[in-house]
C-alpha cells in the first residue's frame, strides 16, 4: 500500500467498485465488532505497582540532587521510639547553602505566648532567614504555630535558613529538640521541618526528635514518628 499523500488533497476521484459493496458492509460489521470488543483481563495490581514505582522514580529524578558528599550511602529513615543515629560529619557547611547574612536575635525580645501545659514559649514566626538564636546557661523554647515547637538546649546556636515549608534550621552547636505538627498530603510525604547540621539533613514528617551536635558528631534522637536523615 502506498503511503504517498501527494494526490490526497484533491479528494477521492473514484468510488469503491460496486463489487465491493459486500466488502464495505463487512468492514462496517468488523468496526462494530471492534467497538464492542472487550480487552483481556489485565493484571491491574501489577500495573498499579509498576505505575506507582514509575511515578516515584520520576519524582526522585526531578528532585534536587543531594548537596552533600555523603551521597546515597548515608541516608536513613528512622521510625519510632528512641532510635539514636550517630553520624560523623567531616564537613562544616550546611546542605542548604543560603548565603543570607546572619544576625543574632535576642530571644527575650520575641513575643511570649502560652504553649504546652501552662508553659510559655517565644513566638519565632516573625523571624526570617538569617536570624540566629543562641542560648546561654538556660534553654529556650520557641514555637512556630501550625508547624513546630522547638527547644534550644543551653549553649546552643541555630540559624534560620528558610521559613517556608519546609522550615529549615541550621544547628551550629548544641542541641535542638522539636515537636513537629504532622502534615497530611495524600500524594506526597511533606517535609515540614528540617534541621541541618554539619552536612547532615534531618527532615521531619511529623514527629518528636532531637538533633545534637558535638563538634563533628551529629546525634539524632527520634522519640515519635519518622525522620529522614541524609546529606
Amino acid at each position: 500500500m502506498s503511503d504517498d499523500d501527494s494526490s490526497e488533497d484533491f479528494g477521492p476521484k473514484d468510488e469503491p467498485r460496486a463489487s465491493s459493496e459486500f466488502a464495505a458492509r463487512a468492514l462496517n460489521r468488523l468496526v462494530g465488532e471492534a467497538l464492542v470488543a472487550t480487552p483481556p483481563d489485565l493484571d491491574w495490581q501489577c500495573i498499579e505497582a509498576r505505575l506507582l514505582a514509575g511515578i516515584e522514580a520520576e519524582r526522585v529524578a526531578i528532585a534536587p540532587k543531594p548537596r552533600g558528599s555523603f551521597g546515597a550511602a548515608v541516608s536513613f529513615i528512622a521510625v519510632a521510639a528512641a532510635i539514636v543515629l550517630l553520624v560523623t560529619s567531616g564537613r562544616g557547611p550546611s546542605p542548604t547553602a543560603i548565603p543570607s547574612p546572619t544576625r543574632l536575635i535576642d530571644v527575650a525580645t520575641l513575643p511570649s505566648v502560652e504553649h504546652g501545659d501552662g508553659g510559655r514559649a517565644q513566638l519565632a514566626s516573625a523571624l526570617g532567614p538569617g536570624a540566629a538564636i543562641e542560648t546561654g546557661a538556660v534553654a529556650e523554647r520557641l514555637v512556630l504555630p501550625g508547624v513546630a515547637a522547638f527547644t534550644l538546649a543551653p549553649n546552643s546556636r541555630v540559624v534560620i535558613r528558610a521559613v517556608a515549608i519546609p522550615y529549615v534550621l541550621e544547628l551550629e552547636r548544641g542541641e535542638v529538640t522539636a515537636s513537629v505538627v504532622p502534615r497530611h498530603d495524600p500524594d506526597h510525604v511533606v517535609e515540614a521541618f528540617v534541621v541541618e547540621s554539619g552536612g547532615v539533613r534531618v527532615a521531619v514528617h511529623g514527629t518528636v526528635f532531637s538533633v545534637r551536635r558535638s563538634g563533628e558528631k551529629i546525634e539524632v534522637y527520634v522519640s515519635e514518628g519518622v525522620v529522614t536523615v541524609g546529606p
Partner: protein
Amino acid sequence: MAFTKLFRAHRSLVAAVVYRMMGPSADLEDIVQEVFLQVHRSLPDFRGQSKFTTWLHRVSVNVVLMQRRRARSRPVLVEEEAGNHEPDARLRPDQDLARRRRLSAFHRILDKISEKKRTVFVLHELEGMAPAEIATEVGCPVLTVRTRLFYARRELCELMVDEPALAGLLEELELEASAPRKPEASPTVPAAVVNRGAIREP
C-alpha cells in the same frame, strides 16, 4: 493516595481505548501504564475546560499514537494467543472463536495500510473523532483527513479478500443478501425500535 483512586476509577476506560486502537497487543499493559504516567505528568495542566474523561481519552489517544510511531522500527506481534481472552458468555464457543479470529484479522489488515491512513481510520471509526478533530490531532487539512479515510476504507475492503477469516464473513454477507427475506414478526413495530429492545405495550 488520590492518584491511585483516579487510576482505579478510569483504568478500564483507558484499557478499552488502547485495546480498540492497538488490537490484541502484547503491549497492552505497558501502554496503559504509560498513559497513566502521562496523566500524572500532565494533570497539573488540566484546567477543567473539558470533561476529565474527554481529556483522558485525548491523552490515551496521544500515547497510543506515540507508541505506534516508536514501534514502527520494531517488529510488531499482532497474532493473539487463543487463550488470551475469556470467552464471551453471550456467544457460543464457535461464535466467540470466529469473532476473535475476525478481530485479529481486522487488526492485521489495519496494520497493512499506511500509518497515516490507519490513524485517521482508527480515530474516526473506532474512537468516534470528527475529521476536524483528527486534522488537529495529526496536523493536516480536514480534506486530507477525509481523503485518507476514503482510501483507508477502500484498501481495507480490498485486503479483506486475502484474509481467510474475513473472506468467510464476505461469503456470509453475500449469502444473507441472496436468501429470501423473512416476513417481519410484528409489522406494526419499526425494526429500529425492535433492535434497541425498547418495545412497550400500549
